[in-house]
């Protein structure tokens, strides 16, 4: 029997505000536990939440960027459950009137565009963090409430994904949109962006959905994909043996790469949602939506298509450029100074990214300015420096932010175009490498490459390579 995989994702993203959703406590990460708390986020009796305007704006921005319908009326609800990381025993969330609904996001998979529908986008408060002591036999857990009350955006997709490639593209595209709109820093290692997957299998061609299994504890995109592969196999095997799939929640075990039953959905949680009486409704008018729309930049997929069309760049190159908004911006700013799309694309997509990876640089803190990169390209075109030297200059520019002209001047890297000087070096190399000359005359063309290399080495890479090649050939032919 052939089965079709059906996947939906729930995404949680911490919003990039400096204070919590309902109080003025800082949201800074990595601070001493329980020092960024107050009576409001600790859930003390009698306190009242007041909504953070920026958090609401960010949530609205994300909902609009995900093509959601925004109802004029939105409200918050209490979701009741008992867990030690939840100080009030309820979470302020949205259930009856979500901020955004019925949206969609287009994703690229193997050159094709798929549209994944978004069920809803809503705003809620983050829970605290539980720490499980490592000591053997410890009969307690520890709680840090610094995270409690941080604004959290939840994005719920429809079960529209049919394979892991689509799931991967969905996660990457969504992350890029959240980064482009600057509503979240999306740092997965800090828990700012988290995914939960629901997966079911159905007979190919069937419309009816199978029982859905939710997978939690997915710490990275990689674990989402591994868990889905594991779960697809587990369910396929199970169905193959004639068993049925229970509707349940499973926990992904990162170390052993297995999922295990967490709780049966039979005893499904009853959250007893009801309107939060401590908060007032929010009315979102057309003017407000229009203002937020103004702040949404061109999104990655649209940018990629434009780069391909306008600058005639490849699918691969453009996907590297739009990976980070700062790179796409740098590229466009360079083009404005000097119209060499392919050249700048290569510098950014190859050299810059290589340097960033090798030296573990923060892409958002690079000191190099568009003007400087354009100046470097001009210096190569004018023959002031060779392209080999340019790479050396570039790797210094990216660290120090110094002008290429200054680096070339200081390190005396200007290209040598003096025929007399190069000729003298060539004469020296010829006389000290008689065997290479022999080889060349016997027809070994490689010997010429070797000799050019020797001349370049002698001049510390500064001789004009084209000139060296021509002069050398003239001399020994």
């Amino acid at each position: 029997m052939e089965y079709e995989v059906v996947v939906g994702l729930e995404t949680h993203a911490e919003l990039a505000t400096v204070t919590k959703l309902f109080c003025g406590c800082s949201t800074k990460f990595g601070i001493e536990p329980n020092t960024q708390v107050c009576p409001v986020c600790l859930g003390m009796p009698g306190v009242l939440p007041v909504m953070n305007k920026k958090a609401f704006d960010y949530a609205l921005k994300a909902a609009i960027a995900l093509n959601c319908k925004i109802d004029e009326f939105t409200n918050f609800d209490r979701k009741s459950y008992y867990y030690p990381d939840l100080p009030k025993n309820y979470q302020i969330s949205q259930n009856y009137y979500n901020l955004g609904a019925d949206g969609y996001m287009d994703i690229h998979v193997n050159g094709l565009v798929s549209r994944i529908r978004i069920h809803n986008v809503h705003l809620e408060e983050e829970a605290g963090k539980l720490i499980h002591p490592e000591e053997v036999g410890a009969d307690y857990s520890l709680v840090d409430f610094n995270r409690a009350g941080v604004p959290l955006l939840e994005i719920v997709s429809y079960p529209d994904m049919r394979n892991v490639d689509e799931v991967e593209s969905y996660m990457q595209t969504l992350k890029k949109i959240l980064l482009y709109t600057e509503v979240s820093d999306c740092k997965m290692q800090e828990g700012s962006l988290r995914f939960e997957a629901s997966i079911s299998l159905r007979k190919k061609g069937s419309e009816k959905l199978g029982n859905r299994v939710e997978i939690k504890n997915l710490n990275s995109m990689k674990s989402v994909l591994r868990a889905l592969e594991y779960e697809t196999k587990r369910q396929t095997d199970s169905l193959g043996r004639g068993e049925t799939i229970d509707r349940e929640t499973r926990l992904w075990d990162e170390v052993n790469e297995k999922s295990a039953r967490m709780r049966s959905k039979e005893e499904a949680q009853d959250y007893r949602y009801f309107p939060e009486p401590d908060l007032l409704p929010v009315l979102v008018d057309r003017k407000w939506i229009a203002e937020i729309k103004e702040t949404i930049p061109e999104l990655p997929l649209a940018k990629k298509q434009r780069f391909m069309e306008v600058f005639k760049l490849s699918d691969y190159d453009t996907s590297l450029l739009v990976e980070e908004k700062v790179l796409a911006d740098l590229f466009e700013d360079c083009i404005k100074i000097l119209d060499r799309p392919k050249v700048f694309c290569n510098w950014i997509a190859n050299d810059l990214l290589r340097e960033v990876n090798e030296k573990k640089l923060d892409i958002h803190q690079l000191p190099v300015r568009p003007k400087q990169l354009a100046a470097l390209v001009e210096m190569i075109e004018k023959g002031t420096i060779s392209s080999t030297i340019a790479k050396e200059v570039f790797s210094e520019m990216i660290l120090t932010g110094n002008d290429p002209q200054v680096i070339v001047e200081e390190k005396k890297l200007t290209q040598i175009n003096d025929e007399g000087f190069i000729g003298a070096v060539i004469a020296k190399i010829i006389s000290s490498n008689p065997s290479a000359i022999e080889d060349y005359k016997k027809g070994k063309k490689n010997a010429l490459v070797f000799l050019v290399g020797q001349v370049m080495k002698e001049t510390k890479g500064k001789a004009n390579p084209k000139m060296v090649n021509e002069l050398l050939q003239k001399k020994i032919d």
Partner: protein
Amino acid sequence: MKIKKKDIEYVANLSRIELSEIEKETFVHQLNDILSYIEKLNRLNTETVKPMSCAIDVTNIFREDIVEPSISLEDTQLNAPAIKGVFFKVPKVIE
């Protein structure tokens, strides 16, 4: 709607409350009384009335995203039944 004993047990479990058999009986009666009183509202035609989620006619109250001082760790832990260092200490969470 008629509240039965199993409904009382269900909500008591959700709220982590232990009830004696006598208490369960008492609550079955009391909750049914309350619900039948409220049921009087069903006599009204509410077809054109929008659900109300707030008793006052005020909307869009916000604060700006500006950091305010948090409270001291000492004050934070003042009412805690159990602490360990900077943390709150709770019974082991299994899952």
